[in-house]
C-alpha cells in the first residue's frame, strides 16, 4: 500500500499500513453509528409528518412528497 504526496508515490511502512487499516475499522463503526442516528431521526420526523398530514388533511401522495423532501435517508 502507498500514499501519494505532491504526485510522488511513497510506500507505507508496516506501521503506517497497520494504522490505515485500523482507521478503516474505526470509520466503518463511525459510519454505521451515523446511519443509525439518521434512521432514528427519520423515524421521529416520519411520525411527526404523519400526525401533521392527518391534521392538515393531506392525501397519501402529498404526504409521500413531503417525506421525500424532508427525510434524510
Amino acid at each position, binding site marked *: *500500500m502507498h500514499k501519494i504526496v505532491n504526485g510522488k508515490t511513497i510506500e507505507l511502512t508496516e506501521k503506517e499500513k497497520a494504522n490505515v487499516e485500523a482507521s*478503516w475499522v474505526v470509520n466503518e463503526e463511525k459510519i454505521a453509528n451515523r446511519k443509525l442516528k439518521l434512521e432514528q431521526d427519520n423515524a421521529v420526523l416520519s411520525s411527526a409528518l404523519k400526525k401533521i398530514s392527518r391534521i392538515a388533511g393531506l392525501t397519501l401522495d402529498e404526504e409521500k412528497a413531503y417525506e421525500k423532501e424532508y427525510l434524510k435517508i
Partner: protein
Amino acid sequence: MQRLFYYPGYTNHLGFAKSGNDFVVRSSDGRDAGSINMPFLIFPSRVNEGSTEKIEFRANQGFTDAGGGGASEIIGALFGTTTGVAESATPFYVYAISNPDEDNLVIFLSRQKDVNQSPVTADIGDTNDPTNAITIDAFFAVSSITEADYAEQPCVMIGSIEMSKDTSDDWTVSALTAEHGVNRYPKIATGGGGGAWEFISSAEASASSSIAFTDLSSDYIKYMVAIDGLDTPNTGTNLNMRTSSNNGSSYDSGSSDYAWDGDSVDSEITIAESLGGAAGVGSSFNVYIGNPSETKWTYIYPVGAFYGGVSPPNVGVRKSTTAVNAILFFMSSSTLTSGTFKLYGLNPS
C-alpha cells in the same frame, strides 16, 4: 547630428547591486552616485502637472537585509504576507519618486507591478519604520524619509528584484539574475497569469491510501483540487479530508478539529458520503480551500456529483486560526482505486 528622445521613465546610468548583506542603488558602472557621476530619470513632474522633469539621483540608496543579522532595516515589513510564515522568493518591483523639491529621487520597493501613483501615507514604510509596509499595496523606501512627502505622488517603475522572507518577518534580497535589475522583470509564469487559476501539481490514484498536497502558501488566495474519475472499491465509503499546519508532517485529527454539514464536531471533513463503488462510476468534484494562509478558520467548499450518497457534497471548516499549509484526501474505509487529483492556485493579482 544624433538626437536623443527622452520619455517619462527613461533611466540613465542607474544600477542595482547586492553587496554583502546590502541592497544598493547606485551608478550602473558600479561607482557611487555623486556630483561627478550622476544618474538621472525623466519623470512626470509633481509640481507642474502635464510636464516632465529630468531629476538627478544624487547619492546611493539601499538597505541591509536579513543577512545582516540584527542590523536588518527591513525586518517586520509584511507586504501583505502572514506574520511568522516564511515566503519563498517573491518578485518585488522597484519604483522611483521625486522629492518635493524635484532635485533628488527616492527608491521604493513594492509587490505591486505597473503602479503609477504611490499609496497613502499609512501604506508607506522606510528603513526607520519598515513595519509600516503592512499591506500588499505598501511601498518601502530604501532610505529614511518623511513618508507623507511621498504619499499619492507620481511614481515610475524602474526595475525589479526578488526577496524571500523568514519566519521572523525578515527579508533577504536574492542574487540579481537576468530576470532582475534596472528595467528587467521576471518572466510571466506559464499556465496562467495574474488573477488566473495556475496549475501546481497532479496525482493519479492507484489503490492509494491517501493523496496529499503540501507547501500551500500565501502566493495564492485560494486553492482548488479538481478530482475526476474517482472510483472506490466498496460502495458506501466516504471521501474525507484533513488539513496540516506543519506542511504534512502530521494532519490534524482531533475529535473536534473540524465541522461539516453532517457533524459539528469531527476529526475530519467528509466531502462526500457513501460513494458508489462500482468500477467506472467515476465521481467528480472541485474542492475549494479558502485562503489557507490566513490566520482565520479555513473553509472547505466542494461542488461535484457522485452516484449514491445521502446528500450533496458537504461544506466544512478547520476550526483553527493557525495557517494551513497542507491537505490530505482519503477514503473512510478503503483505498482510492483510481482518479486524478489536480491542485490549482488562484493568483491574487
